[in-house]
């Protein structure tokens, strides 16, 4: 399975996302922000970083990159897309996911090993988890507070679209401890913490993050079987 990893000017975790894809058994394909051609990938990861320096609003400028138009239309057609941190911000800015990510409530950048509970396992990126599974992955952001209006929040919860919630500590003031959400179809997932930094015991706090990347491979297998 070919999984594209997009590099925007200022993307930082693109190599890490590609490494995670490889460790999960997929083929990582580098995508360039300026190309609208998606090189026949089967899924896309929007990695973390500070696209365009995050100077305006995180993800605000990257959203207009040529590659994003192609990703938006393929995502609407069902292609799996995972946005991590800055990638999550870009997905919100692109309106593929509702809400927005705002400045951490304590106003500091924070890097910590974060405990999460996986609440929704029927997305393309969380299939390999058990419902209610607790995991620890790194979190690192300056603008990670998830906000949306009450109605949207209620709807996210009611429809089971919250895929992960913070446990023990809410690190950034996210509404209702939301760490990640998905769209109704389950192919588009946005996640503030960084599963790609928890794929090797040597460099991560755990290897819990790997299941996000194996999930999308499982998704592909299932769809081949079903086809």
């Amino acid at each position, binding site marked *: 399975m070919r999984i594209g990893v997009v590099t925007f000017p200022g993307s930082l975790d693109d190599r890490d996302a590609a490494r995670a894809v490889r460790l999960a058994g997929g083929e990582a394909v580098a995508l360039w922000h300026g190309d609208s051609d998606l090189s026949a990938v089967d899924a896309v990861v929007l990695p973390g970083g500070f696209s365009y320096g995050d100077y*305006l*609003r995180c993800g*605000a*400028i990257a959203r*207009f990159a040529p590659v994003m138009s192609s990703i938006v239309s393929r995502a609407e057609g069902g292609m799996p897309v995972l946005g991590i941190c800055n990638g999550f911000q870009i997905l*919100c*800015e692109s309106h593929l996911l*509702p*809400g*927005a990510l*705002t*400045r*951490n*409530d*304590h*106003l500091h950048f924070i890097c910590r090993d974060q405990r999460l509970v996986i609440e929704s396992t029927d997305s393309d990126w969380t299939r390999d988890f058990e419902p209610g599974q607790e995991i620890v992955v790194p979190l690192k952001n300056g603008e990670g*507070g998830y*906000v*949306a*209006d009450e109605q949207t929040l209620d709807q996210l919860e009611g429809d089971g679209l919250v895929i992960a919630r913070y446990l023990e500590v809410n690190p950034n*003031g996210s509404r209702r401890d939301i760490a990640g959400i998905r769209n109704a179809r389950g192919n588009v997932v946005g996640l503030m913490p960084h599963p790609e930094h928890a794929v090797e015991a040597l460099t991560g706090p755990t290897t819990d993050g790997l299941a996000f990347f194996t999930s999308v491979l499982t998704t592909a297998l299932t769809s081949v079987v079903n086809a």
Partner: protein
Amino acid sequence: MARVVVDVMLKPEILDPQGRAVQGALGRLGLTGVADVRQGKQFVITLDGAMDADRAAVLERLAGELLSNPVIEDFTLTVQEDS
């Protein structure tokens, strides 16, 4: 030369941690009766040549799409025609 100022503010219902931090600090540093502080962004855009209807329309669109995020922010746009 035209000067356009775009002010962007978080919507009133969105929590503004920066504004809150400033409010606390103003109080500690001796300003009494601070009821509220909101912190926003201001963009001062200088354009070559004069404003025209086309550019005004593009600006209005970009103020709402790029300079602010309508999910959480409101903007006001002011054109200051310069000599």
